[in-house]
């Protein structure tokens, strides 16, 4: 079976985010960009399925600027077979990404789409679920463990109260949570090999998708900052402050 893995190029998770002075967004000039950490986990899971002989081909897709091809290369170096870059410089909302992915799914006919549960830039947590709905497929979100059968998948999910297992019919969409696996680092030989793997270049228009945003961002501002308080010297002093000054215990 084919597995499709959508990956997103985002600000590196170690970079301190700075809001632009004109409040139009976050400063991304000369900032290190990387693959969304959740997407690394989904690439890893797909590659493991291939190594176990369950998946026949792993296709990495990214919707983004030309540089998103580097993100696809990272996936290829981890073990994906080929890539599709849907090139656009626009900021694409989750719904439009889901529509593009749906068109790609219609062409490629994968049995499973594995993607990160959210991207760490817009923190939307929508794309996988939207794709599943547009396709009329079931979903297993926030995946903690995957048992893949021939016609179905048992997906253990991280939920507020603990863990939940659902059985979904294939084809399906799975979005991954942190503890599904630990993504590998690509080895140098694999990075070299990845340079020869094909990446097809497309545009949203090739799939007939309008990427104009439906939401209007009026401004982006800094959150209110908390000020550092006081240091206390002893446990007794801490409890005294909590009880008599803050009144919270």
């Amino acid at each position, binding site marked *: 079976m084919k597995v499709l893995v959508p990956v997103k190029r985002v600000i590196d998770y170690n970079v301190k*985010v700075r809001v632009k002075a004109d409040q139009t967004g976050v400063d991304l000039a000369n900032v290190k960009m990387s693959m969304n950490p959740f997407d690394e986990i989904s690439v890893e899971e797909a590659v493991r399925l291939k190594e176990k002989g369950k998946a026949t081909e792993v296709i990495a897709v990214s919707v983004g600027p030309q540089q998103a091809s580097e993100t696809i290369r990272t996936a290829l170096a981890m073990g994906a077979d080929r890539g599709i870059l849907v090139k656009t410089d626009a900021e694409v909302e989750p719904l439009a990404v889901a529509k593009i992915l749906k068109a790609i799914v219609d062409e490629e006919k994968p049995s499973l789409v594995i993607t990160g549960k959210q991207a760490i830039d817009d923190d939307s947590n*929508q794309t996988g679920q939207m794709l599943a*709905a*547009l396709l009329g497929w079931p979903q297993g979100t926030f995946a903690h463990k995957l048992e893949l059968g021939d016609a179905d998948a048992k997906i253990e999910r991280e939920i507020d109260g603990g863990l939940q*297992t*659902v059985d979904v*019919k294939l084809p399906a969409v799975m979005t991954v949570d942190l503890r599904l696996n630990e993504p590998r680092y690509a080895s140098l030989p694999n990075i070299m090999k990845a340079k020869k793997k094909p990446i097809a270049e497309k545009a949203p228009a090739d799939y007939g998708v309008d990427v104009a945003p439906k939401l209007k961002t009026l401004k982006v501002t800094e959150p209110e900052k908390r000020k550092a308080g006081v240091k206390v010297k002893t446990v007794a002093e801490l409890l005294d402050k*909590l009880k008599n000054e*803050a009144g919270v215990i």
Partner: protein
Amino acid sequence: MASLVIAEHDNKVLKEATAKVVTAASQLGGPVHVLVAGQGAQGVAEAAAKLQGVEKVLLADDALYAKMVAETMETLILSLAGKYDAILAPATTNGKNYMPRVAAKLDVAQISEIIKVVSADTFERPIYAGNAIATVQAGAGKKVITVRTTTFKTAGEGGSAGVEKIGAASDPGLSKFVGEELSKSERPELTSAKIVISGGRGMQSGENFHMLDKIADKLHAAVGASRAAVDAGFVPNDYQVGQTGKVVAPELYIAVGISGAIQHLAGMKDSKVIAAINKDEEAPIFQVADYGLVADLFKAVPEMEEELTKLGY
């Protein structure tokens, strides 16, 4: 211009998150209806009917909704969507699961995890793990919104809305619930506790978390953890506070052996009072803590238990 709030519950108890979403929905201006989808959830519907500001409760009581599986919730909500201008759910793992499906089918953008209603079509939401706040305006069409419940007040009781039973929508037959392992605890839930005490990598083992349990029992607190502690296997995933775990805003948050990574701060920085115990005085947690104690937690936590006992807790 009515709003539909999707209730969060476990078929027995209406979760406080619902009352917070009702507050957000009320701020949109129109009448507020609540949908309770569950099995044997009559009591939940009655509790929802008492919330201030609720005009009507719809109860879909059917085995299909026993566990709020996303695919069945989608068809149910879509069958009702025509009458509403806005559909809101709490940003719980349930709400996050089914709501984007609804938005996609309605061909609208979902507005995720709003923290403020600026006007009927304009909202604030955190992005980049709360390091920036975006103010967004909804376009044409229905509004599909998930609500970060920590920033909204709980709607009071005293209402007396009617409960209307509605039939189940069609079963898409795509998925089924197999089972669940829920953490059992006598303590309050993390997201609604007045006091939360959390441990980080500094706790060194799951065993050592029992030190925090003892403090939690004295203070009627919930126990949480940083991602580092969860990834290290000290405690289960549902303990995780942070950008990708739970967002909490208790009266008091006590961080023990937590350095204060951005991802963790995103989940607790709206707490009213933050106290931190860490042996590294340079730990970033001290930059947000109201009260900081530079100390070895293995001495400080047992001492805290003793002192609390002395104080009569």
